[in-house]
């Protein structure tokens, strides 16, 4: 069980975020929910790359006696996470600017009132 705790944290974060998106009414909170899901997925990716007792895959100033590749964590998940973080920033910026505009137009942030488009 103990070795699965990071994965459980991932699932918890994803579903906390999903809960916020599905049941919260404030648009900002929905945006926060999406950000939490994204953090959960990023945590998932970075968790997948960890190797027991590994160091960062950087050769500059490598601790003496480190054998590689056995004692280095995987570099690909870190690169994927980096990409994912930047994507998250971009999505967040766009969502927040839309929320700002929506607030100006609708005068509310309640998701139940922002539904001129229905049926």
């Amino acid at each position, binding site marked *: 069980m103990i070795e699965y705790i990071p994965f459980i944290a991932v699932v918890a974060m994803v579903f906390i975020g999903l809960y916020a998106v*599905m049941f919260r009414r404030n648009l900002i909170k929905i945006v926060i929910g999406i950000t939490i899901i994204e953090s959960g997925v990023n945590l998932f990716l970075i968790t997948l790359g960890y190797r027991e007792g590994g160091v960062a895959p950087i050769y500059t100033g490598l601790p003496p006696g480190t054998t590689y590749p056995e004692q280095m964590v995987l570099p690909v998940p870190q690169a994927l996470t980096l990409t994912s973080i930047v994507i998250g920033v971009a999505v967040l910026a766009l969502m927040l600017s839309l929320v700002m505009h929506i607030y100006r137009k609708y005068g509310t942030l309640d998701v139940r009132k922002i539904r001129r488009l229905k*049926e």
Partner: protein
Amino acid sequence: MFTLESGSGFWNPLIWILIVFIAFLLFYGIRGFGKNIHKKGTEQTKAFLSGNKESAPEDMHVKASNLYWGFTTSMKALYAGLRKMHTGNTSDYILWFVVVLAVLFIIFGVM
């Protein structure tokens, strides 16, 4: 090049056009047998509304929402359900996503 085979049938647009053309000719020929009693600009072409005056043209135009009134009224129950489904609430969009996810998880989990 023109014939589209589907394994169990075929479709050829040229034959179709030919048939439509022949049908059109036939129709036109039959139409020629009739008498030409239509005269423009007489009482014949005016709408008869039981003696009432004809409305302005913009009032005569049936609005798009009023077309198919009969169909939508007879399907009222269906439309009520569908309108209820399309709430326009962002959270509900995600809810439908999660519902489909759950249903498929159960189907694939059992099968």
